[in-house]
């Protein structure tokens, strides 16, 4: 099964990022891929990216800088508004993954 590795970012690295990770996991199971999400706070993003491989970043608190992987605003996964668009973006990234 494909595995999508997501860095899930929020202010404290607990509440919003965990909710985002759960929703991403649901999207994965609906579409037949696995989601491995790691929750961090905004200050831990650089170190996390240096220490591991990720396919995308999904955030609930603004992050700054240039990134070589797609960066997605995950607020819609909390409110349900614009959730479809986020799902599409995630599916596009997942499509490119190798088995």
């Amino acid at each position: 099964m494909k595995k999508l590795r997501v860095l899930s970012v929020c202010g404290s690295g607990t509440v919003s990022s965990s909710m985002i990770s759960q929703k991403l996991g649901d999207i994965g199971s609906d579409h037949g891929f696995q989601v491995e999400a790691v929750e961090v706070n905004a200050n831990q993003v650089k170190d996390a990216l240096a220490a591991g491989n990720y396919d995308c970043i999904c955030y609930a608190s603004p992050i700054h800088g240039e990134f070589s992987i797609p960066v997605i605003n995950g607020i819609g996964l909390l409110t349900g508004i614009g959730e479809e668009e986020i799902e599409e973006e995630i599916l596009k990234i997942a499509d490119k993954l190798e088995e």
Partner: protein
Amino acid sequence: MGELLDKSLIEVGVDAENWEDIISYGSDLLLKKGNVKEGYKEKVIEREHQFPTGLAGKHMGIAIPHTSAEYTLKPSVCVLIPKKPVAFHAMASEADMIDASVVLQLAVKNGDMQLEMLRRVARILQDEELLAHLMKAKDKQEVIRLLAPILEDK
């Protein structure tokens, strides 16, 4: 999970001029109940300055102020319905303001318990109809009746 909904952590018609007021109100309820440690209030306010928690729903705004687990003694959801909507800065776009008609102030702890609690809070955030009823709730009993199915499996 059964004890998430606590009558003493619910208040309807809270008089609050701004987000600091309402966070302060919720913090006092949590502190009085013994669910958070001293310093929780200051930490949540400090964190809200840095990482705001206002969320724009389709028809109304909500906010989920919280801080990290170190100040939590018991995971809790404090449900506050302000007399009039309280302006919070928006999560992930600080320049935007959200008029929150429902404030769910959280005390979180790490681990599975928290994940389950957050899963349930996420369901509330996405349930427009429930939120619309919540913001119009007249008393605690009504809030309990509305939230019990989600927070207590009833």
